[in-house]
């Protein structure tokens, strides 16, 4: 009989998150637990869900700092635009855009240097922007709950509206992927040199 297997893509994803030193041992530990304990007790579907949650845990541990920095800068910018609206958004846009670029490049660089794989940088970019999008949605929701008087609502409209605030972090996934790839490439080169 064939041994049960976790989703192949999830295992591949996990390998990209790990350093070469831990790649085989950690994936081996999870596979052993999956086959000997989780799958016999919970069945294929629940075992796969368990495996995915473990992989998500590794992804979060590797990228939470970058996600926190990215979402922190976004929420700060949003709060400033809503509560201290400027006459011209140029300087704020300039600073927040380049800050986001720097954070995503660093996320990719860190992952690429740790694993020696360009794909780790790509995944770091995706994971960072996705985790950040969730934090941003919660954070901006809280800002709105704290203050939603008429001047604030007018400032929200003047800064692009609510739709932009909630969709922009999600739209960052694509540039985040590209910047993560660039950072990952630099990180890989740094590891080899």
């Amino acid at each position, binding site marked *: 009989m064939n041994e049960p297997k976790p989703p192949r893509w999830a295992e591949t994803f996990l390998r990209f998150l790990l350093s070469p030193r831990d790649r085989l*041992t950690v*994936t*081996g530990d*999870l*596979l052993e637990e999956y086959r000997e304990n989780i799958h016999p007790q919970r069945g294929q579907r629940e075992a796969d869900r368990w495996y995915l949650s473990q992989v998500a845990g590794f992804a979060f*541990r590797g990228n939470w700092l970058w996600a926190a920095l990215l979402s922190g800068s976004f929420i700060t910018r949003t709060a400033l635009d809503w509560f201290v609206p400027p006459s011209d958004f140029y300087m704020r846009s300039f600073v927040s855009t380049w800050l986001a670029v720097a954070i995503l490049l660093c996320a990719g660089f860190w992952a690429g240097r740790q694993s020696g794989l360009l794909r780790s940088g790509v995944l770091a970019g995706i994971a960072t922007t996705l985790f950040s999008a969730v934090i941003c949605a919660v954070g901006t929701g809280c800002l709105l709950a704290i203050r939603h008087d008429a001047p604030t609502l007018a400032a929200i409209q003047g800064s692009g509206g609510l739709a932009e605030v909630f969709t922009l972090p999600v739209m960052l996934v694509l540039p985040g992927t590209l910047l993560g790839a660039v950072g990952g490439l630099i990180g890989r080169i740094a590891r080899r040199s």
Partner: protein
Amino acid sequence: MADILGTFEQAVLLAVVRLDDEAYGRAILKEVQARLQREVAAGAVHATLGRLEQKGLLVSRLGPGTEVRAGRPRRFYTVSASGRRALNDARAAANNLWRGFRWPLKGSYERTEASTLG
């Protein structure tokens, strides 16, 4: 005295001591879960093992894989002399904090004469 270990770090180090020659990632994870009586993410144990090894409290070596692991090797951990010292320090610190109290705590009258230093 070195940095006092956190509760989770102590749980991981003590699991390695308990498992002795069989202390590898998955076995440590299960031992920690059993002792803490809760689900623990593999990533949390893995990160802690890495941190403790970097601090020199653990040493590791690779061992052979098995069929159920698709032949992938296991990393076995041993507590170093510094690790044992850190565990002893953590235990001594906890003992000092608790000295003179009856356990479990119910109220201030549970304090005994020995609960003050000096």
